[in-house]
C-alpha cells in the first residue's frame, strides 16, 4: 500500500498551517508586548503573558493534532500469517502470507516425512484489545 500522502492531505495541512501560523504570530506579539509593558503596567503585562502562552500552547497542540491526522490517513495493510502443517508428522510452521497462498493448498513435500504440506489457516493478528465499557 502506498505510503505517499495525497493532495487532500496536503490541502488540510496547508489550511491548518495558515491558522496555526496566524495564532502563533499573535502569541509572539502578545509575549513581546508583555515584556515591554512589564515595568509600566505589570497587571496588563501578566494578562498578555498568559494570553500569549495559552495561544502558543494551542497552536502547537493543533499542529501536533494535524500531524497525527495525516499519519492516521495512511491505509495500513495488516500483517497476514499463513499456517502450514504436515498432517502425517504434525509439523507446523507459521510464515507471512505470500500471494498465491490459499487455505487447503498443497505445498512442497515435508522435510521430515516427505508427505505434502498443507496450508491450514490464513489469518491476521489484531493487536489492540476491544474496549469492554464495563457492561
Amino acid at each position, binding site marked *: 500500500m502506498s505510503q505517499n500522502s495525497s493532495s487532500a492531505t496536503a490541502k488540510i495541512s496547508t489550511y491548518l498551517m495558515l491558522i496555526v501560523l496566524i495564532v502563533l504570530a499573535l502569541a509572539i506579539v502578545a509575549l513581546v508586548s508583555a515584556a515591554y509593558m512589564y515595568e509600566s503596567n505589570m497587571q496588563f503585562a501578566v494578562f498578555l503573558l498568559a494570553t500569549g502562552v495559552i495561544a502558543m500552547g494551542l497552536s502547537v497542540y493543533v499542529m501536533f493534532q494535524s500531524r497525527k491526522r495525516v499519519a492516521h*490517513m495512511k491505509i495500513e495493510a495488516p500483517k497476514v500469517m499463513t499456517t502450514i502443517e504436515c498432517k502425517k508428522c504434525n509439523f507446523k510452521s507459521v510464515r507471512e502470507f505470500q500471494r498465491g497462498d490459499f*487455505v487447503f*493448498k498443497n505445498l512442497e513435500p515435508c522435510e521430515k516425512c516427505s508427505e505434502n504440506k498443507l496450508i491450514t489457516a490464513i489469518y491476521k*493478528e489484531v493487536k489492540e484489545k476491544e474496549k469492554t465499557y464495563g457492561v
Partner: protein
Amino acid sequence: MVMFTAMNVLPNLFGGGGDSISSILSMVFYVIFIVFVFYGQRIQMYVMIREVEGSLYKLKYIKEEGRKITIETIKEIGKPQTDPSARVDRYLESFTISPQSMDPAGIVYKLDHIIDVRDASLKDEVKIMAPESDEVQVNNLENTLEAAMALNYIYKVVRHFYIQGKKTLSLYVIMQLQMILPLVMKEAEAYASALKAFADGQPIGDGVGPWVAAKLMHGYETRKVPKDCVVASVPIEGRTAFIIKAEGPGGNVGKPGEAVTAVIEENKGKIASVIMIDAALKLEGEPVGEVAEGIGAAIGGPGVDQFKIEESVVKYKIPLNAVIVKEDIGDAVSPLRKEIADSVDKVIERVKTVVLERTKEGDKLIIVGVGNTIGIGQ
C-alpha cells in the same frame, strides 16, 4: 447627570468596578455571549462542516488509494498491453438499476437476471483489462474492482450531501450527515482493507462459512453444481451430508440458492435438514468469533438466494437450521481475524451437535458454507 450615572454603572456591569483586567475579561465574555446568541447555530454548523470536510478528505484519499491499488494489481497480474486506467475509471462510474417493484410478483427472478448480467459484464470487463489472468485471478480482480466501486460511491454520496449542506446552509442536512459519518467512515475503512485483501487473494471474515465447509469436505471428491458452487458427499455421524460451498480459491460467493435447490431435487426432496453456516453481524459488546445457532436461512446479499432456498425447503417441508459466527462489518470484509479462524473448529462441533440432535442415523442432509470463498480452496 444621566451621562455621569452611566459612566459609573457601566464598569460595575462588566465586573471589577475599575479593575482594568476584569473589565476586559467581562467585556470579552459579553461579546462572546452576544455573538453566540445570534450566531450560535451558524458557528455550530461551521464546526460540523469542518468535521465533515475532514472526513471527506479522508474518504477522497481512501478512494484514490483504492483506484491506485486496483490499477496496479491489474497491471501486475493481468499484464495488459495498454494502460487500464481509463477502463477502470469508466467502470467505477457504472451503475445497476434494480427492477421495478410496483407489481412485485416475479421480482426475485428479475433481480436475479440483472445481477447475473452485471456479474457477467464485470467478468468480461476484467478479462479485457487483465488478459493474462487465470479464472481465480479474474474473480479476485472482480472483487477488487467492486470494492473500489463501493469506495467511489461512498465518497460521491458524502460529497453530495456536504455540498448540498454548504449550498443551502441548512443545519439539518449537515447534522444528518455528521451524525451518520462515524458509521460511513467505518464502512469505508473496511472496504479499503478489503481491497488489499482481494488484490492479494487473502481470505476475508465473510469466508468463515466456506472455510468450515472446505474443512468438512477436504479429502473427499467434489463436483460442480450450478452456479459456481461445489458439492461433496461426506459421512458425518452415520449420516450422509452434502457439503456445499462456492468454488474457491478465487473471490466468489456462488449461488447457494441454486446449488441447494439442485441437490434437494437430485434427492427428490428426501433431505432431513439443511444447515447453513455464515458470518453474521455482531452487536456491540459481543465478542468477535462467537458461535450461535438458530433457525432460518443464514445468507445475506440481495435476497435472491435466501428466497430460492426458502422456496425449496418449504416445497419439501425440510427443517432449516443456521449456525453463525459473529463479527462486525470491518471484520467481514477485511482479512480474516485469528479469532474467526479459531472459531472454525467450534462451528464444526456445533454443526455435529445439530446433526446428532435433529437428524437420525442414515438420514441425508445438506450443509452449506455461505460467503465469499476468496483465499479458501476445497
